[in-house]
């Protein structure tokens, strides 16, 4: 769990990982300084204060207010730290769940995948959990590349296996559901003349073939 926690932490809200104590300490220092200055001024005006009970009361009230504010800030600081640790904990749990579902996927590889990180940025710990985000990413990538999600997934699994030193041979996928180069070329020339109803019959396979050759060319 501790290991998984380290991945994707950089995508959590940056402000939550900044040490909030530093900021609060600065605020406190300023306030203490102000208080000291106030106290110095108090000594000078002692004679007057004794004569003026009302101003004394005002100062007491001011100090009480500042104390309350300080306490409130401290409570908020504790709450933030708790929330932050909860988020890290939640992410860790989601990554553990993910590893259970996809044991072959290497999280370190995924953590280095810039596209994936761009995809999940802002979505992490949102409505969808990490596994759902990963699955959605596979779908989007499949759509864009014209491959199936299974093919994309296999790529990730192969990466994971090779990075962990596995000796499992890479799968070679031979597309059986696309036109041969010759057929594809002939169809490309013929389609502008074909009746729409005839085109409809071959369209799905033609588009699939087009995506296949397009992706393999690049």
């Amino acid at each position, binding site marked *: 769990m501790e290991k998984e926690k380290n991945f994707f932490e950089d995508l959590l809200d940056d402000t939550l990982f900044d040490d909030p104590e530093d900021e609060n300490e600065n605020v406190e220092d300023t306030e203490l300084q102000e208080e000291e200055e106030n106290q110095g001024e108090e000594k000078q005006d002692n004679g007057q204060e004794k004569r003026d009970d009302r101003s004394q009361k005002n100062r007491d009230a001011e100090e009480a207010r500042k104390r309350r504010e300080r306490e409130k800030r401290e409570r908020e600081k504790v709450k933030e730290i708790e929330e932050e640790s909860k988020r890290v904990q939640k992410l860790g749990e989601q990554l553990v769940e993910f590893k259970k579902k996809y044991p072959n996927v290497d999280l370190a590889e995924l953590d280095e995948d810039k596209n994936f990180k761009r995809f999940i940025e802002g979505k992490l710990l949102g409505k969808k959990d990490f596994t759902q985000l990963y699955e959605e990413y596979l779908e989007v990538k499949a759509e864009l590349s014209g491959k199936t999600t299974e093919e994309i997934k296999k790529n990730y699994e192969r990466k994971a296996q090779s990075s962990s030193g596995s000796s499992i041979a890479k799968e070679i996928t031979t597309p059986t559901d696309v036109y041969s180069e010759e057929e594809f070329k002939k169809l490309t020339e013929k389609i502008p003349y074909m009746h729409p109803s005839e085109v409809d019959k071959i*369209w799905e396979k033609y*588009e699939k073939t087009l995506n296949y050759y397009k992706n393999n060319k690049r």
Partner: protein
Amino acid sequence: MPNTLRAELVSLSNRMYKEWYNKTVLVQSCDNSWEGEFDLDKREVDIPIYHDLTVHQTTLKEHELKPATVEFVRASTKRVSIDKMRYSHWGETKISTLINKLSANDSIVREKMMNKWAQEAEKELGIWCAKLPNKQTIDLTDLLGGNGVLDETNVVHALDILKAHAISNKYTPEDFKLYVSEKFETVLRDSKILTGANLDANEAFRKGFVGYANGVDIRKIEIPEITTRNSNTKLVDAEWGIWKTRDGIQYVVPYKDTINYDISPEQVLLGGKGYQSVEFYDFFNLYPGRLQKVKIRYTENANPPAL
């Protein structure tokens, strides 16, 4: 590896055709069959002929089941010349950029252009129908009597007249559909005779479907050029309706592609290649009785536009 850029242009053209075609009502209502392959040089194509379908009669006693020469349904075709063409220049000289821009699912340029193509196709066909000769006209302004105004009190009678015209021409009224503006729909609603009794599951989702009234399938078209509108309210005062069967118009698009052409250095710095989506198309009315224009008036003294 095959040339995928060429294939992508072909794919784009087909996609565009489907998109604009599905946005139409009147064009979609036409028969779009053709046979064989379009001859790009001669611009000729064969379209089917339906009027020579025959039913032979015999008696079981005679047992003459083949009294006529052998013939098959839709056996004959007519060779027609394709005369019309629509095209759009695309403002890109780099093919990969053009494809990426226009092929995107959410391409605004493509969407707008296809709306335009659909509107132009509807408009052209609508005007062509409105220009049909007098012998193909059903003048409701005259036939309804009085001031000739069609309203909720006589709309059933008007539909009866249309059906009677089909019957008198020896056609089945159920084969006909009436294409009219939104004003006709208003009249039908006011008359409360609009029914969905004959609906099949998908009917209500078809573009332009209004409903069935007095056994007539009514479809709404949006072609401003064949309507006369009130100058203030813009509501329809009069219009040309279209009363037709599917084969009343044969509308074919036998060629569609995206092709390149040379741009001279005078037009674009250093010159280059321009791209344009092209479609050859044409429409025909081989059976005058199956296509008629209907003169309709909703306001006294109003007349549809003279085209």
